[in-house]
């Protein structure tokens, strides 16, 4: 535990408000997620597990001193001891026995009484019999001493950053009618969108949470392909999911709407320039209806293996331009090549006929072969099967009915393993 004492008064907080201890405690969360305001002029930071990020405890303390000049720091195992060390200890001192009694934050009346019997330092207090100390001076000295020594728990109010983009409604009577929930969503979205518009921001992810009276908390999550602050669009998306996802049960007593992530969205002037077509609305609707796993763009991938030439990218990413392939490619590709039995003259001729799904196709025309080798630089070399065994020879063939197929032969006809034929796609 690290205690910060602003011995020369509170510095101006990062947002410019002098003397705002809460803001300072929030600012200190750059050092550790657990910080607490310590009124009137201190901050407590739990640095357990965080010091190594700044090069150890000494590095962390140096970093804080560099940012807040004039600060007094106290480092100890407990918050109470750190408090005392920051205010009464010398730099580098970790022993509280030599500190004066005031370092325990005792009330002045008790300190005065203890001084009258010659107890001036915490070490003196530790030597006194516990039962008689309580009988003579009340529970406070022992309580504080135990806290400082880590023998009794201490309670610190760690703070968390308040959500920036959240609107909430609380109800005296729980609501459960769909029309009430829909009206609440309309009100919350309108409020949030006005705030977003003022800040020139748009939400890219939103969450609406419904706090039920039986302490269940169903929620609706929304995602947007582009930043959005259109209240009608957001409300429509929420209401579309309301019926299926939200069971109000015995009633909802509070609803919150939060923009989880936001991005800059400058305001648009309407009616000046010719309108640029905006497809954000249908894309957002589809994204929320299908989910990001079932809606994607494709980007080219640097490989010759046909099934890997396109990779999926999320639709929130900008489209990647494609170049036309050098050789014809089928419009429909099977997810996995389908094994076929083919009759073909050796060594390199296209098949004369092949059987796929128990139907025999006689071949009228064929073009090829187009030889596609494996990405050998990506694979371990295998002595038993050299790379030449792993090539594919692709043929575009047309059967007597006119259907054009994309077939390939895997391996060579006189290789270590017999060659196999596969159907991989359809041109038409």
């Amino acid at each position: 535990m690290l205690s910060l004492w602003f011995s020369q008064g509170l510095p101006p907080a990062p947002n410019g408000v002098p003397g705002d201890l809460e803001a300072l405690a929030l600012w200190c969360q750059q050092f550790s997620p657990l910080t607490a305001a310590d009124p009137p002029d201190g901050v407590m930071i739990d640095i357990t597990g965080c010091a190594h990020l700044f090069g150890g405890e000494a590095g962390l303390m140096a970093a804080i001193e560099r940012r807040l000049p004039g600060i007094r720091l106290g480092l100890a195992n407990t918050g109470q001891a750190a408090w005392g060390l920051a205010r009464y200890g010398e730099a580098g001192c970790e022993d509280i026995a030599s500190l004066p009694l005031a370092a325990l934050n005792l009330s002045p009346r008790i300190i005065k009484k203890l001084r009258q019997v010659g107890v001036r330092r915490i070490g003196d207090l530790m030597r006194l019999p516990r039962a008689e100390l309580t009988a003579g001076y009340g529970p406070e000295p022992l309580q504080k001493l135990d806290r400082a020594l880590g023998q009794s728990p201490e309670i610190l109010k760690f703070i968390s950053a308040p959500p920036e983009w959240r609107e909430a409604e609380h109800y005296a009577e729980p609501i459960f009618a769909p029309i009430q929930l829909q009206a609440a969503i309309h009100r919350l979205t309108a409020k949030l969108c006005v705030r977003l518009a003022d800040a020139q921001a748009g939400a890219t992810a939103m969450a609406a949470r419904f706090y039920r009276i039986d302490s269940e908390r169903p929620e609706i999550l929304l995602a947007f392909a582009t930043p959005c602050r259109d209240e009608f669009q957001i409300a429509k998306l929420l209401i579309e999911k309301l019926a299926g996802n939200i069971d109000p049960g015995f009633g909802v007593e509070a609803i919150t709407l939060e923009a989880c992530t936001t991005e800059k969205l400058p305001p648009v002037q309407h009616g000046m320039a010719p309108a640029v077509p905006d497809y954000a609305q249908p894309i957002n609707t589809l994204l929320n209806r299908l989910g990001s796993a079932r809606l994607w763009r494709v980007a080219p991938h640097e490989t010759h293996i046909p099934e890997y030439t396109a990779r999926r990218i999320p639709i929130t990413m900008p489209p990647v331009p494609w170049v036309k392939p050098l050789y014809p490619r089928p419009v429909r590709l099977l997810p996995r090549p389908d094994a076929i039995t083919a009759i073909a003259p050796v060594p390199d001729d296209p098949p004369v006929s092949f059987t796929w799904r128990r139907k025999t196709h006689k071949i009228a025309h064929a073009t090829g072969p187009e030889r596609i080798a494996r990405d050998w630089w990506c694979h371990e070399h295998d002595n038993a099967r050299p790379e030449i065994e792993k090539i594919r020879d692709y043929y575009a063939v047309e059967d007597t009915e006119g259907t054009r197929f994309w077939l390939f032969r895997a391996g060579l006809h006189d290789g270590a393993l017999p060659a196999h034929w596969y159907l991989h796609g359809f041109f038409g």
Partner: protein
Amino acid sequence: MHEFRAPTDGAGHIAFAVMLLAELPIKAPILWVSPQPSAYPPGLAWLGLDPARCLFAQVKDDAESLGALEVALRGGMAGVAECTAVSRLAARRLALAARNGNGVGFVLRYAPAFTQADSTAFATRWTISPARSEISGTLRLQAELLYAKGSQPGVFMVEIREAEHAATPYAVALVQPGIAARPQRRTG
């Protein structure tokens, strides 16, 4: 809204739809809905359609497929949906969405040329079947217009050739239908 059917396994109707999409004057993003991801982006690029314009969606069933297409059309996007059946109600809704949103939608399905649920809501209905090509290296499709609003049905032959240079990898040529493929007058 247009519907393209293929009688058997194959991809003639996909190739036909891709060529039409590539030639469309509007450059709206295209939603490609299918139960299995089957459209092959390099194949689309080969036929002149930039896959960067496409958004691909995978759906569970026909209802979801047509619903997604309706959302896209209403928003002004172009859309392609692969599905197994289109009811009259669904066709009506899709046509309305396409008209309201000024979108272009294609429905691709493996179906015979005539079914019980055929409706006249779509602007055109085609069946695309493979046809034997004369020379090697070309793809010939027989596109039979089954129904068109305000015009006569007919049979067209489309030929996709491998061109010599890479700038235009394909060339479409309309071929006169042969005797075997005589236009059949059918009312839709």
